[in-house]
């Protein structure tokens, strides 16, 4: 059994309106020391696989096909056997 922790983030070049809004809220709440906020997704996927390499391949495919949209997002993941 493997557990993949996947991080999907908006590409640097893409504006993150949610991050901007959260930063704005932080500023009005008095946290003027915050200079940047970016918001992304974190997915935890538990899967069976015959080997670490097999798991890695499967997760990579899922990320490319489903978890991220390459037009706007990047992904990366960590994999551990559990």
């Amino acid at each position, binding site marked *: 059994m493997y557990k993949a922790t996947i991080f999907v983030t908006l590409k640097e070049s893409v504006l993150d309106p949610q991050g901007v809004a959260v930063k*704005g*809220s932080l500023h009005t*709440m008095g946290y003027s020391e915050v200079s940047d906020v970016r918001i992304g997704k974190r997915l935890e996927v538990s899967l069976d696989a015959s080997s670490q390499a097999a798991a890695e391949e499967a997760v990579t495919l899922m990320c490319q096909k489903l978890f991220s949209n390459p037009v706007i997002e990047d992904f990366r993941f960590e994999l551990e056997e559990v």
Partner: protein
Amino acid sequence: MIEPTAEQIRDQELYKEMGLTSEEYEQVKGHLGRLPNWTEVGIYSVMWSEHCSYKNSKPLLRKFPTTGPRILLGPGEGAGVIDIGDEQAVVFKIESHNHPSAVEPFQGAATGVGGIIRDVFSMGARPVALLNSLRFGELDSSRVRYLFDNVVSGIAHYGNCIGIPTVGGEVFFDNAYDGNPLVNAMCVGIINHKDLQKGVAVGVGNPVIYVGASTGRDGIHGATFASEELNESSEEKRPAVQVGDPFMEKLLLEACLEMVEQNMLLGIQDMGAAGLTCSSAEMAAKGGQGLDLNLDLVPQRETGMTSYEIMLSESQERMLLVVEKGREAEIMAICDKWGLQSAVIGQVTDGNQYRLFQHGELVADIPVNTLVDDAPVYVREEKVPTYYVENESVDPTDALANIDANEAIEKILQSPNMASKKYVFQQYDYMVRTSTAVRPGSDAAVVVIRGTEKALAMSTDGNSRYVYLDPVNGGRIAVAESARNVVCSGAEPLGITDCLNFGSPEKPEVYWQLSKAIDGMSEMCEVLQTPVVGGNVSLYNETKGQPIYPTPVVGMVGLIEKREHITTQAFKQNGDVLILLGDTAIELGGSELQQAYTATIAGRAPILDSGKEKALQQAVLTAIRQGLVQSAHDVSEGGLALAVAESCISGNLGAKIQVETDYDPTLYLFSETQSRILLSVSKDKVEELVQTMEQFHVPAQVIGQVTEGNLEVHVNDQLVIDRSVAQLTNHWEEAIPCKMTASSTSTN
């Protein structure tokens, strides 16, 4: 967790934690003839909670008129049903989700919407519209802004996603709701008579089928939570909040309606408050049967759930069905098509026992009628509050002398209570299903019925300041105003659903408010022939011992016979004549003017004469059907001045008003005297209109005309209001967005 034994429950009085009193515990012992175990105590406590049993309100609710020639089904089932002809009926109900929304506003509000939708489609009806009624503290508080924003987006999220238009509602801000916001959601559906379903378990040996989301530990004891006062430890009741999945509910909705259409069901009930317990026990009690459930067969999301947890979970998006033995496969096939999980979890039995099995053991064994029919009923003590007595001698006009009308109209248009609610409704998909003929922003919303000339008008209303000052009149006004809204849209009022949001009934003053408000509402319902077909009671709305304003919310539905009768509040054409129906007195207790200039409310609420109200509504409906009316708007909060301003703003036209009065002009213009409607009528119809009004003995006064200029109001030939409509529109539209963007919203 190791469950306490029956003896521990007794000795340590653990039942009290679940909300049962010592006397109630003794009754349970009597019903069982032995000590109840943990699961059984849990089951009794939710079934006997106010939310499920109405133990504090039942005797009062009996005062409501509930029958009438069109009523197919009154209170009792999931939702009320009223005939609208052509073998069709309208099904509707309102419900509160106040306490969950106070601790998790987004999910609390969302699951409130989800719950009321299930109430409607479990009747076999197709939900066609949603409305809501919201109360918050004032927007200057960041906690309030957080609650407001998240409640609205929670409602939007659920309704938009499932694809039922949210077409109307109301929002009101007052410090009385600061720690205890109100979130009431209403759903309206349409059904063919032959499809009407019942929540019953019948036919010994028939299977009980569970459909929908699996059961988790979320929302355990939600019904009890809803029946308690909010306090510091409410935060610890956190698991009582559930997360909704509108996508799952959409699948459940379509699957259930497919089963209804194919006539597969003997009984269906949604698992709402008190989850599996309430649905199964009520179905058995109504069917006059016993029930066996095997909890091992209940789809579960988490491992190691105890029988107590399974029975008390309020996981969302679940339905319980009873079908004829042998038809299980047909049900499963439909569930499979929609990707829903389903399981036979038990069967209908002979007799009266409600028996639960888990891991091969009998874990609960209860005479089912004792859960439903033998729930305790309390008649509480009533006491007239001192504030009410003191208000007798208060004259609100004393504090309201010499107010400039120009200033007053701008000030009141910018009060969040009177300002445009576009900030709210632009987040709701009010057009999905392509039936919405009058969108949010007029007196009532109108939804057409495809394939017919008919349409439904609907509105939610309730002015709690009036009810606080005078519960009888306030109760009358709540019903009258919602009916007036519906009439102004061209509809005949059919009936109401109500949500009674009050403080603790154990306080004699609160119980008095509840009792008197129900008297007023009942009287008005009687006179208008709009019976109460369903509703909900939410008591214990208090924080730190302070009750909210008594807040009965009325959800009214009316029938429009022909699409051409659909009428809105917006002025339509330059030159149209303005006619004010009804008499104007100076009544400013609980008014917007009083609130705006004194920041308090005092005195008595306006008086409502139910006979006058009835005549007014009949006259206006007749005139609309005769084709005499261009626009109709009820005169309510903010009085004549606000009514004219709102009709100008929605029509983007001006008006020139000329009136005479012996009173102070500002008091006259902002008085909230009831039973008044503002009409605009094209010149050539004025005479006929006046005649129609005479037939009904309704006072009609020509007060001016629609123009393309400013809003100009002359009182006794003196110009007291002169403002451009664009400027007024701007004040009115920007008020709430301004308050919301000016500052942050945070969870605490």
